[in-house]
């Protein structure tokens, strides 16, 4: 096959894999935004921490899926605890205060991880292989690990969709997010729902943390770029739409990969900024925003 076409194909495949991971992380941000209207800057640190939990278990010869499940449970628990202890008391105050508190958590959790787990590189295994597929004489930038990542994010998206559209809990959460006061009057325990929202986001974030790490190396600040890209993807998607997060993530992943492959690796962040500004200038609420655009 023509070398140029193989390059283009592989850059697109590479963008797809990068994008789906960004999407997974953006989903976690969107979950919290839907229920509390704030951006959780600590999400990346939480995900990093639970990935270290998984790695610690794996190093003690736990089976992969057991470690995976325990990390997810830890993510769920950490999300719930943080909501109860740090976020709950700040509810009703200035939004910016919650933002600062999550920034504090972001810094503190990362420092804590460095103290507990050390700041060295450690490799994080993938349950499947990391060698690419070959079709004829074409080498594809697609590995069993990237398919594992794609499938896992698919499962998460389907799971969340079912939760929000088919279950009583999910419907109540949407109602509470839409109008907390009315839900409260109708007898819904909104506060429990908020905790559940954070816990769920913690769980999805934990999945994202493990997916980024799969077949890669981790260190306490390995989530740093993903926090920024995940946030940008979530904003592109409209912040409160899970579909938007996935679309935003994929779009960003592809643009990043194309710019890096055909222009310069250094201009990736600039491209992300330009993409975001273009989207926001056309649709100030993002691509899939359900809230009506505010007047200007």
């Amino acid at each position, binding site marked *: 096959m023509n070398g140029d076409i193989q390059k283009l194909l592989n850059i697109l495949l590479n963008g797809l894999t990068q994008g789906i991971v960004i999407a997974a992380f953006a989903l976690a941000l969107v979950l919290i*935004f839907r229920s509390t*209207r*704030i*951006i959780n800057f600590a999400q990346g640190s939480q995900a990093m921490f639970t990935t270290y939990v998984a790695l610690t278990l794996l190093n003690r010869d736990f089976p992969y899926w057991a470690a995976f499940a325990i990390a997810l449970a830890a993510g769920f628990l950490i999300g719930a605890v943080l909501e109860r202890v*740090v976020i709950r*008391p*700040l509810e009703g*105050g*200035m*939004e*910016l*205060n*919650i*933002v*600062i*508190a999550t*920034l*504090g*958590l*972001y*810094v*503190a*959790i*990362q*420092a*804590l991880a*460095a*103290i507990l787990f050390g*700041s060295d590189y450690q490799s994080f295994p993938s349950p499947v292989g990391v060698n690419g597929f070959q079709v004829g004489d074409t080498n594809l930038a697609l590995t069993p690990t990237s398919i594992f990542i794609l499938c896992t994010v698919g499962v998460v998206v389907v799971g969340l969709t079912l939760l929000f559209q088919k279950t009583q809990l999910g419907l109540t959460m949407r109602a509470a997010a839409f109008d907390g006061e009315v839900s409260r009057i109708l007898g819904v325990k909104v506060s429990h729902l908020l905790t559940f929202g954070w816990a769920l986001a913690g769980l999805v974030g934990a999945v994202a943390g493990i997916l980024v790490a799969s077949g890669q190396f981790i260190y306490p600040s390995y989530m740093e770029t993903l926090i*920024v890209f995940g*946030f*940008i993807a*979530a*904003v592109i998607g409209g*912040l409160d739409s899970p579909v938007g997060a996935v679309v935003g993530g994929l779009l960003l992943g592809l643009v990043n990969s194309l710019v890096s492959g055909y222009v*310069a690796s*250094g*201009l*990736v*962040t*600039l491209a*992300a*900024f*330009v993409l*975001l*500004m273009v989207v*926001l*200038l056309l649709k*100030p*609420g*993002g691509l899939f925003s359900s809230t009506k655009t*505010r*007047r*200007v």
Partner: protein
Amino acid sequence: MSTDSTTKRLLDLNLTRNLLISLAVLVAGMLLLESTDRYTNTQLSSLTYYAIAAIGLTALTGLNGQISLGHGALMAVGAYTTALMLDTETPLPFPVVALVAVVVTSVVGFVVGIGAARLHGPYLAGATLALAVALPSVALYFKGTFNGEVGLTVASPRPPEWFVSFIDAVSGEFATSSKYVAYLGLMCLVVALFFALNLRRSKIGRHWRAVRDQEVAAEIAGINLGRTRVQAFVISAAYAGLAGAVMAIVVRLAAPSAFTIVLSLSVLTAAVIGGLGSITGAFIGAAVLVFLPPWVTSLSTGSGLSDTQAAQMSPLIYGIVLILVMLLAPGGVMGTLSTAWRRARLRRPNPATPTQKG
């Protein structure tokens, strides 16, 4: 006619008051610089640029209600402008250079502000965060001008004759270049402070607050929302540009790795933990940024931790402090103090009108 003259007198009163406050800060700053050792002097130099940036951000966020996670990038614009202008055989005097840095950064701020004016809350946060990570990559890409990763070395301005004899007269000491830089930082801070004090009392400041608190009402009252937002962004960018100029001569280098997202977030936390909208708060926040990390580190090494462990303690404690301040003093340090002050006054039998916090 009579209302006009009253306004005028009030204005004069305000001007005089603000001038006095600024002069007091100048004198206090000089006393501080002359009574502390050289290391503390350098810390105070760092404090000046953090404080200038935090004052600008506290104006934007506190008065106008816009959030920016990208002020570090705007500081980079100011710093690189300064580095480029000082890199000649006969550089212009620093005040001129700083002024150019302010103008250039304001222009960038204007462009960003036009985009930002349409955005709210988290969308604005996202856009400015993206700016913060995007702008340093411009310096990496245009290597010819900005020298890539290594960055531009900044020639420290040399202390002029009059300054040397001035310091000699004040303290009998030899004026080093870092002393001169500290004084330049102080001067910039005082100028920044004077403008900020006037701004909050001016028509512009009132408009900003109106837009923050009652968007619709403000619009009905004839305030152009879009223009007000852009205006706030430009002025805040001007502050960031000045902060960048001071940072360039304090750090002696403008390089992409100095303007990471961490800087933007640090400036924001400085503005909030001190007390959003309060200039004194911006000072307190900047002081926390400068003095807390080395204090924690030396405390940690003092208690027997290794250098690495001590280094890790510093962000841990910083993070915990941020959380605790938000939990225990949601109005920031100044907000909480002024609330307490008002409560105390209200409890008196004959309550006076609550004074505005400054």
